[in-house]
């Protein structure tokens, strides 16, 4: 195959499913394999940044503790530093005063990064439908998985995490910048 006019289009060598997932170029076989390997590695070592804001944080600690044991999923370390974390679990109600902080922490995390919104308050404000609280952290940062519950059981959080793993395993290698507008000041 010569590079030029008779180059194969992506839809001639890729299945429609692969085209829908955004795979392009002639090296389709190679990129799918690399993508699979990278996604497998990423989904099996998602280090969470702890962002406990309220009572959901108690359940988050419980999830981390020995009975539920998040290290079964390669998440044994809750990093207090955003620079070392891949995923942030927002656990609890987010006040408007706290909103710039969480945005800054999110911007400081290295890509690729994911967000789990744990509990009613983080997901949409929950029972606190008032001026003081952000009605859902997705006003501030892009959320991948919402976990309803007040607070969710540890099992419910783990189910959300497993849903996130499924999402990571179906992701593309590029396109991270398109997910949310980035803040260059971080």
């Amino acid at each position, binding site marked *: 195959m010569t590079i030029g006019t008779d180059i194969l289009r992506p839809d001639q060598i890729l299945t429609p499913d692969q085209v829908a997932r955004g795979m392009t170029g002639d090296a389709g076989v190679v990129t799918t394999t690399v993508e699979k390997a990278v996604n497998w590695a990423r989904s099996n070592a998602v280090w969470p940044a702890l962002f406990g804001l309220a009572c959901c944080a108690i359940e988050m600690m419980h999830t981390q503790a*020995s*009975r*539920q*044991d998040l290290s*079964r999923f390669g998440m044994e370390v809750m990093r207090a530093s955003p620079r070392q974390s891949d995923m942030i679990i927002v656990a609890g109600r987010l006040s408007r005063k706290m909103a710039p902080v969480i945005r800054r922490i999110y911007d400081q995390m290295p890509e690729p990064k994911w967000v789990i919104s744990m509990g*009613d308050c983080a*997901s*949409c*404000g*929950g*029972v606190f*439908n008032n001026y003081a609280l952000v009605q*859902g952290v*997705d006003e501030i940062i892009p959320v*991948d*998985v*919402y*976990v*309803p*519950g*007040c607070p*969710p*059981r*540890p*099992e*419910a959080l*783990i*189910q*959300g995490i*497993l*849903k996130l793993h499924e*999402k990571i395993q179906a992701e593309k290698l590029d396109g991270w910048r398109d997910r949310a507008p980035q803040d260059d000041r971080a």
Partner: protein
Amino acid sequence: MIGALIQGMGVTLRTMFRKPLTVQYPEHKRPVAERFRGRHELKRYENGLERCIGCSLCSAACPADAILVVPAENSDEQRFSPGERFAEVYEINMMRCIFCGFCEEACPTDAIVLEHEYELAAYDRRETIYTKDMLLVPPGASGDDTPQDTRGRDVPFRMGGMDYFSVPIVARIGAAPGTAPVPAAPSEPDTAPEAQAPSL
């Protein structure tokens, strides 16, 4: 010093032979408590009619304003629930819901019950709004799906310890005795009148 070291390592040694505490969650699910409040379900009577009569008391009791009820009128041709009205739209926003169970307490017909399902995670906020067809349980073996055609048959039901009839009481006893068609005996009442009254 050596003694303290041995003592400390003894604790470590002891825990090595202890049974692991960890629950292997996705494979093995720990049973929840009997009174655990999880995802809601809308219940039915044994004859398949929906218990919900669209009174919106659950919606009024909800501290998080998570429930939306839009009632509509029943008719004998298209009957969803005994009584005058049924819930045409019944939506619960699981993200607002705090699973307090006030809706369950407020319900006069025990239509809404918080069951034991807790796996509710979603990729999208819109996915967490549960509509009536997601909440309503399927009809049991002895009942038909709604709407039912109840023309010509009586639909007795029991609510708050009292007997109600789908045919208005005036039509039943207003006419002179002997001329009014007396409905047949309750074919499939939900609870016998002498059974215990539903707890409210």
